[in-house]
């Protein structure tokens, strides 16, 4: 545990993956429960950072299975044994994990990567194209995401490639329910929770409390609003007043990410040129 993270000056030397990690980490509070799925280097780095700084008691279920693990660093897979190192408990999946996840009292926040995300936060990891049985691209599939979208979780999306291909007017297939067609559509189905935040390589978005349309919350330092809008496949709502800049990481956070959490740069995977 480092103690200088609070007093550390704002970093000038940092990469956007590090900014996304610190932004995501800031959303997890002490005592929250977090879990991760496969290829989830940004969330895993964020959980590890939170546990080393402001949220030492953040409960982490590595790969949704290994309770309170002590991985030596971010490994090449977020769904393999090195991530569960020194776990306190192996949580059996069929019964125990889903009893905990579906219950609603625990694991309230869930991080999601999605191939397509639309203006209402509906996510697609299933198929690209109109014909489900003969898709243009068969994506991996929804895995547990379709569950997490419907059982009261707060969904935090991360997207390393903000583009009109990944942020689309309407998803080709709803693999996970966002706000559906907006307004009170979720409530009418009895669904609680839903998308909260979208963190990309350009900006941070949230959702308007009434219309449930995606809204720009902040742009990353050096990125203009016009750039973000141009890279988005639909018109973003704007916040009241001027658009703030996303808070950059501190020097101590960057040092922790680079030297302690992820010295092998796994977090860069999935980024263009990463």
């Amino acid at each position, binding site marked *: 545990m480092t103690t200088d993270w609070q007093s550390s000056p704002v970093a000038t030397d940092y990469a956007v993956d590090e900014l996304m990690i610190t932004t995501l980490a800031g959303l997890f509070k002490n005592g929250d429960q977090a879990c991760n799925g496969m290829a989830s280097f940004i969330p895993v780095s964020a959980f590890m950072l939170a546990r080393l700084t402001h949220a030492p008691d953040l409960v982490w279920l590595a790969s949704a299975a290994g309770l309170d693990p002590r991985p030596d660093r971010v490994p090449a*897979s977020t769904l*393999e044994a090195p991530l569960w190192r020194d776990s306190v408990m*192996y949580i059996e999946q*069929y019964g125990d994990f889903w009893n905990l996840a579906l219950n609603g009292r625990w694991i309230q926040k869930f991080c999601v990567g999605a191939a397509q995300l639309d203006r209402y936060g509906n996510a697609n990891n299933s198929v690209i194209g109109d014909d489900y049985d003969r898709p243009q691209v068969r994506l991996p*599939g929804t895995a547990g995401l*379709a*569950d997490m979208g419907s*059982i009261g979780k707060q969904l935090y999306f991360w997207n390393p490639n903000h583009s009109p291909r990944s942020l689309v007017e309407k998803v080709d297939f709803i693999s996970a329910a966002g706000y559906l067609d907006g307004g009170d559509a979720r409530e009418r189905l009895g669904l609680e929770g839903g998308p909260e935040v979208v963190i990309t390589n350009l900006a941070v978005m949230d959702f308007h409390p009434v219309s449930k349309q995606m809204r720009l919350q902040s742009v990353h330092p050096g990125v203009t609003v016009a750039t973000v809008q141009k890279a988005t496949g639909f018109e973003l709502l704007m916040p009241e007043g001027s658009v703030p800049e996303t808070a950059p990481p501190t020097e101590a956070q960057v040092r922790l990410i680079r030297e302690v959490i992820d010295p092998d740069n796994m977090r860069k*995977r999935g980024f263009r040129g990463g």
Partner: protein
Amino acid sequence: MQEKIATLSEAIELVGDGQVVALQNMATQAAPMALVRELIRQQKRDLALIVLVGGMAVDWLAAAGVIDRLIGAAVSMEQFGLCRQYRYAVEAGRIKVEELSESVLNARLGAGARNLPFLPTRGAIGTDLIARNPDNLKMLDDPFGGHPVLACRALVPDVALVHAHRADRYGNVQYEPTILWPDIGIMPMAAKRVIVTAEEIVDTEILRRNPDRTRLPGFIVDAVVEVPYGAHPTSFFPNYTYDSGFHREWAEAARDRATATAFIDRYVRTPSSQQEYVDAVGDVSELSTIQTAEHSG
């Protein structure tokens, strides 16, 4: 107790063309790959495959033309990429996908195991998975007055294929302390038949020392085969890790039908035993460093 010892060939002869086969697998983890190879060698056809998260096994079965349906939550080799041969087969319409969320798959198998017509879940409500699957998923009013739930129709696999750390000759199956994915927790209980490969067949006395580690009772198991490195190239914690080089080699071969076929000929169709397979792969012993690497601190 009845003896269940079989060869790979005898075990897979229990699988008929067109059947529904549940396969233990989690991306790059814990797939009964020796059984998968035997499905290909015996040229099974028109199988439906149930996976939670399928990996290379799905890609091989797709490339070899063994499966025409997939029922599952995801297919991916994670760091080694999408399963291309599977993906191409789906895009060409040769494999039909029944995509389910994890809680829906668990509910379908759970209903199958408990002889119920369905089990409900709250997962997947609001998604397009439901409209795509009217035969198996229906919204249902809560008879007690709450919000509607999703009824998930019972799914009974004809056979479940699993790999384990050890078993005795009566088919009692033990796992070392490890992550237990739902496919171990529910697939064998739902299936009509269960085929197990184990890293080692041991005397029942060994199992009696740790009965809490016995996960499948012998009476539900139809065949058990001793297959060291039976999950290779997937990982089998704590015995061995995944084979990165082999995954990369396949991911490259899978870009093209001819190279995929050549790969499968070399590693699947040509070796006539597990030993010949291991010899074809090369030195696998270094994969076993997982235990010291993960536990030494």
